[in-house]
């Protein structure tokens, strides 16, 4: 573990190195980390793989023996399965590791990469595969129509609307009433029904409820007359034109739904489609890539703490916020939060910041979508949660050793 930590080069590596004073091996089962100052994020960073990979333990002796390329070709670890063969980018074959400390039910396990969703579903329908991930909304009915298949809707990332450059007084979204009117116009239930077969969640906060210091927020209402009244008060009785509404690729259909709903209060806009890499590049560049009046339908799923969300998506200079959403008062509070070692104070600041974002409609939460998967008839499962017991933190079937086939059960 000491070696893995010292050689870690992924996200937050610089932060970890700067804060760490020493790592001492106390015994075979104990490692002691010493820091230059209190480091409250440390446990979350170490324990949240999609935020920071420093917690992954790599076998040092083996890695040093085979080198980086050798390890990529034939990695070893301490899990329930050992790698038998891999066809890079296509297939990985595993075999149960008999010495594992828990029983491993499925002896041979293969992961196949199949880019086309319809083909993945066909594989499960035909019994060539037992689980398929990432099923788009248009295939829901096909799965529901087959009694042998089971749909596994895992609650995943949150979606929200944001208004780049709203700080500019000339931008119509500068007026809180306009942002509130947008929120009152969005029919979140209709979007959830259409996009996730109703299996997502219409929640209040734009931050997932499975992270530290997140606050609970009531569901938003849809009220077109009230929205129209607010638009009238803001000086836009007939609405206005928005240059583009851009949605995270390739979820374009949900962007179209928002565009169609916004027409009710006279906001006219068009959908801007772009490739994922282009979208990320533009988000990373900032406001100059989003001239005029724009709406972005953004989304993410991050683990750990609410602060990862704020820092990446809202804070001035953040990974995807850059100079698009700069609220100095909140950033100052966040700076105080980041340097505070008092848990009560941190909790209070986290609450205040989140409340302000929601009350001011800086972000307009839409829904939490469902990451849809399908389970085939061979797997032993009374309900989909039996195959996805860790669904609160992972969209994938895990732990693998708990999966059981009906024949071998």
């Amino acid at each position, binding site marked *: 573990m000491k070696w893995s930590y010292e050689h870690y080069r992924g996200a*937050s590596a610089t932060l970890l190195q700067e804060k760490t004073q020493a790592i001492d091996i106390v015994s075979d089962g104990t490692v002691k980390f010493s820091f230059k100052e209190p480091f409250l994020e440390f446990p979350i960073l170490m324990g949240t793989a*999609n*935020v*920071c990979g420093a917690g992954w333990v790599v076998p040092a002796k083996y890695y040093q023996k085979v080198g980086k390329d050798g390890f990529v070709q034939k990695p070893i670890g301490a899990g329930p399965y050992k790698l038998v063969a891999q066809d890079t980018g296509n297939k990985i074959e595993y075999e149960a590791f008999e010495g594992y400390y828990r029983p491993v039910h499925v002896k041979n396990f293969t992961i*196949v990469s199949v*880019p*086309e969703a319809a083909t993945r579903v066909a594989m499960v329908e035909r019994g060539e595969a037992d689980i398929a991930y990432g099923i788009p909304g248009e295939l829901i009915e096909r799965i529901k129509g087959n009694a042998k298949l089971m749909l596994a809707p895992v609650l995943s990332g949150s979606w929200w609307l944001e208004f780049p450059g709203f700080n500019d007084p000339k931008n119509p979204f500068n007026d809180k009433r306009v942002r509130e009117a947008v929120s009152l116009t969005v029919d979140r239930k209709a979007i959830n029904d259409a996009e996730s077969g109703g299996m997502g969640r219409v929640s209040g906060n734009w931050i997932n409820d499975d992270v530290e210091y997140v606050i609970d927020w009531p569901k938003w209402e849809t009220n077109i007359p009230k929205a129209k009244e607010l638009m009238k008060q803001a000086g836009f009785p007939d609405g206005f034109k928005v240059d583009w509404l851009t949605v995270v690729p390739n979820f374009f259909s949900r962007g179209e739904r928002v565009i169609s709903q916004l027409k009710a209060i006279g906001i006219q806009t068009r959908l801007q489609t772009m490739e994922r*890499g282009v979208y990320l*590049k533009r988000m990373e560049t900032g406001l100059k890539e989003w001239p005029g009046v724009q709406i972005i339908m953004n989304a993410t799923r991050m683990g750990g703490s609410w602060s990862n969300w704020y820092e990446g998506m809202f804070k001035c200079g953040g990974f995807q916020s850059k100079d698009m959403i700069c609220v100095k008062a909140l950033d100052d509070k966040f700076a105080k939060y980041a340097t505070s070692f008092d848990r009560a104070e941190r909790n209070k600041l986290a609450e205040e910041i989140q409340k302000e974002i929601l009350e001011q409609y800086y972000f307009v939460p839409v829904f939490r979508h469902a990451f849809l998967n399908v389970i085939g008839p061979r797997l032993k499962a009374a309900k989909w949660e039996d195959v996805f017991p860790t669904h609160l933190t992972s969209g994938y079937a895990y732990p693998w050793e708990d999966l059981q086939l009906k024949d071998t059960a």
Partner: protein
Amino acid sequence: MARFIIRRTLYALVTLLILSLTIFMVIRLTGDPVTLLAEPGAHAEDLDRIRAEWGLDRSWPVQYLTFAKNVFTGDLGKSFNYDMPVSTLYFQRLPNSLELALAATLISFLIGIPAGLISAVKVNSVWDNTGKVIALFGLAVPGFWLGLVMILVFSVWLGWLPTSGQGSWQHLIMPAVALGWYFAASLLRLTRSSMLEVLRSEYIKLARLKGLPGYVVIAVHAFKNALIPVLTLAGVNLVVMINAAVIIEVIFAWPGIGRLLYEGIFQRDFPLVQGVVMEAGIMIVVINLTIDILYAYIDPRIRLTR
């Protein structure tokens, strides 16, 4: 002849230079790979470190010169996504693409050439019209649609064939038909027009006047000559099928070069996309150069007029 070969080789090198510049520029215009390589919560310093690690912090001219120098020495770089040499990935996938392309070529021959031949011999008949309809459908029906329909019918409903992947000969049937049908249609059209042209020529009239049986005139005299442009097209088609069967390989999860390219584009894997395109470009340029030289060798008029 030597001057001709030198001139054509220089043209080929210029073509590859332009191709390398184009793919280098185009892939960089599409987005930043670093945002895809980093975790969602990555900080600015993490992005800078990844950028430096992969040499993306250097200017474009410096990056291009390194890329060009490496290509010249046979090194296509290392894939961002797979962390493996691009040439290793390419040659791992090449046999799979070759297998699919050869099967599709065979299918395109079996459908396209006999149908084209019959269409030409029985011109303006029911046979000819049927051939035209086949050609029209082959060119008009998108491969991805045909592929998905075949999976639904032959795998899900009838249960005759596996849906996707590679393994037995059964795995090869649907992707080969879906890929080969389009090329069968183009071969059918070319065979038909080439045969019609040959059948109108003087030496065919002479063969008929000599009293040779119809099948001998068609099979020995006409078909042999009509086949030259058809085989040239089939050669080019084969190279295209090896390197660019992207949609079919994606639909059928066939682990070939097309799918490798698809994954490279989606992951902004610059070295992978550049490498695959350069390999394909070199293959096409070398084949064309060889054909040009062979034509010039066989027909001296070519090397004198060009």
